[in-house]
């Protein structure tokens, strides 16, 4: 995407960095990435096709066994729901943050970012407390007389989706907020004076212009959701496993490393495919008209 001859690596006096300085700057980072990420992934992929003997059997098991296939599809479906829910919850908040000023705006920003500083485990535990049979939600519903019997909330897919959307919401809100912030106020005013109602301003101007933020937020949330472990493991039903739980089971309980590796291989394939599709089909620079 960057034009040839343009680089972001510069000397302080404006000259381009030499090859050596570039190497020194990037080497530690890439060394760690190579050691803790690329190497284990490759290792797993190798295991998935070489053990117990050179074969694609492990992959066949993922697709042929309906139980495993269902786990895969459920994972994709859950990630989709989580993404949709966080766009739905996140966009209005991001819009408000981008337009508001003063104390309330600062407060909202803190509320969005603060959860990032607490652990996922804590936040998930909080949800399991709320979702319990005699937890806050059920007691409230019964106190209001909306139901006589407590609902089964914990260990359901809904619980997983709601809690995951909550955990991942900041990753949706922040990119959308960034995109909305870069839209000048005058566009809304221009659209209004040209005859657009608030709804049409949103649909025809604000939404299309913030699309890059929505897409990158969705990508972040969707891809993270695909591999999410703690929340599905704590809040989900054992009968409705997600792929990460299945991988963990295969490694820790069944000790079937080749099959676990094949599952990781399938997940990696999905992630890579998605990333490629997004970057090819949605040409952000064209979408934004290459605006200055």
């Amino acid at each position: 995407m960057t034009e040839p001859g343009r680089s972001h690596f510069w000397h302080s006096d404006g000259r381009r960095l030499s090859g050596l300085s570039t190497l020194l700057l990037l080497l530690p980072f890439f060394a760690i990435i190579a050691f803790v990420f690329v190497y284990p992934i490759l290792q797993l992929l190798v295991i998935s096709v070489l053990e117990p003997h050179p074969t694609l059997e492990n992959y066949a098991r993922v697709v042929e066994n309906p139980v495993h296939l269902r786990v895969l599809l459920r994972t994709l479906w859950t990630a989709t729901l989580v993404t949709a829910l966080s766009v739905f919850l996140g966009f209005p908040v991001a819009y408000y943050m981008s337009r508001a000023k003063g104390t309330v705006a600062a407060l909202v920003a803190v509320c969005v970012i603060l959860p990032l500083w607490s652990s996922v485990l804590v936040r998930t535990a909080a949800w399991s407390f709320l979702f319990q049979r005699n937890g806050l939600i059920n007691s409230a519903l019964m106190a209001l007389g909306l139901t006589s019997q407590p609902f089964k909330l914990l260990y359901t897919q809904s619980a997983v989706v709601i809690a995951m959307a909550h955990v991942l919401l900041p990753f949706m809100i922040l990119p959308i907020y960034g995109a909305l912030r870069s839209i000048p106020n005058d566009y809304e005013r221009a659209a209004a004076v040209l005859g657009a109602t608030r709804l049409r301003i949103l649909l025809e101007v604000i939404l299309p212009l913030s699309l890059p933020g929505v897409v990158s937020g969705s990508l972040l949330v969707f891809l993270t959701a695909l591999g999410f472990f703690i929340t599905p493991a704590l809040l989900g039903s054992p009968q409705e496993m997600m792929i990460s739980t299945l991988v963990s089971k295969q490694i820790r309980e069944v000790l079937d490393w080749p099959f676990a590796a094949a599952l990781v291989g399938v997940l990696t394939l999905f992630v890579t495919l998605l990333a490629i599709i997004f970057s090819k089909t949605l040409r952000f620079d064209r979408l934004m008209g290459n605006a200055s």
Partner: protein
Amino acid sequence: MNIASARQSASGASIRISRLEKRFGAVSAVDGVDIEIAAGEFIALLGPSGSGKTTILMSVAGFEFPTSGTIHVDSEDLTYVPSNRRNLGMVFQNYTLFPHMSILDNVAFPLKMRGLRTAERHARAEAALATVRLAGYGQRRPNELSGGQQQRVALARAIVYQPRVLLMDEPLSALDKNLREDMQLEIKRLHAELGITVIFVTHDQSEALTMADRIAVLKDGKIQQIGPARQLYERPANLFTAGFIGEMNFVDVAVQSVGDNISVTLPSGETWRLPATAAVEPLASGEAAVLAVRPERLQLGTSLPGQVVAVTLSDIVYAGAALLLIGRLPDGTEMRARIPGASQLSSLVPGDVATFTIPAEAMLLYRGKRR
């Protein structure tokens, strides 16, 4: 064909702004402004930043609701009507073309909002583009056009639905000088062709003077003077306008007597006699006053009738069409003269005492003090 399509437009609407006030907390951005604008008139709101000119325009556009006062377009009260139901055209300083739409879709946007079918709105958008001499640019993206072209597209978009009022918020200040002058002519031409009422906000006085039928000079949320360019320039109504519009020499004087003539004493002790018409504001003897003279009204030499004044020159600046002479009166008050046709002046050097004549009708008197 471009003119024909534009001509169908209804001519402009009249606008009445009465006792408009806008307060932000304790600050009055607009403080009791009354403006009557005739149908088809081109009016400029001119003033330094913070004078309230933009707030007035925002109130007419419906982006701000005034604290009190009313805005009528023709006889309809629009004071609290939302922007999208005012049916006004508006051009912004930064073009505000939607970057995700083609030029044609940008121009057709207001027609889409009004529920026109695709074929018709595209045809009318094409015609509007032709009116601003950008026929054939419809398929491009805003970022593929120059600043001047983008502002012309914004103009086409603002007139394509044939509004009867066009609001312009410093539309030319983002353009460089040559382009600005082209666009001034372009806007004047469109105004003449469409007969639309224009309110034009600017801080550039030469832009206001050349373009507008009438100019409202604003300061601190109040109108200082409203009138045609010639009136503003030749007989500014108060000291602020006198200093704000064009170049002006100011001399603090004391009024001695008021009658058929007015006698004033200069700081140097000299007494000048001025015609009674020189007093822009009513004066009484004994009051402090300010004498104002435009630099180009000073005549070198004493061949013509008028008040003679001796100036010790400090700077002689060649300024192309005219020669600018800067000097001081005996008491130190600065005096400037702009002399066209500089050939006979070659002998003057800084330090010389030059003698000028000021025609009686070129002198204006205001109440108050400059410093």
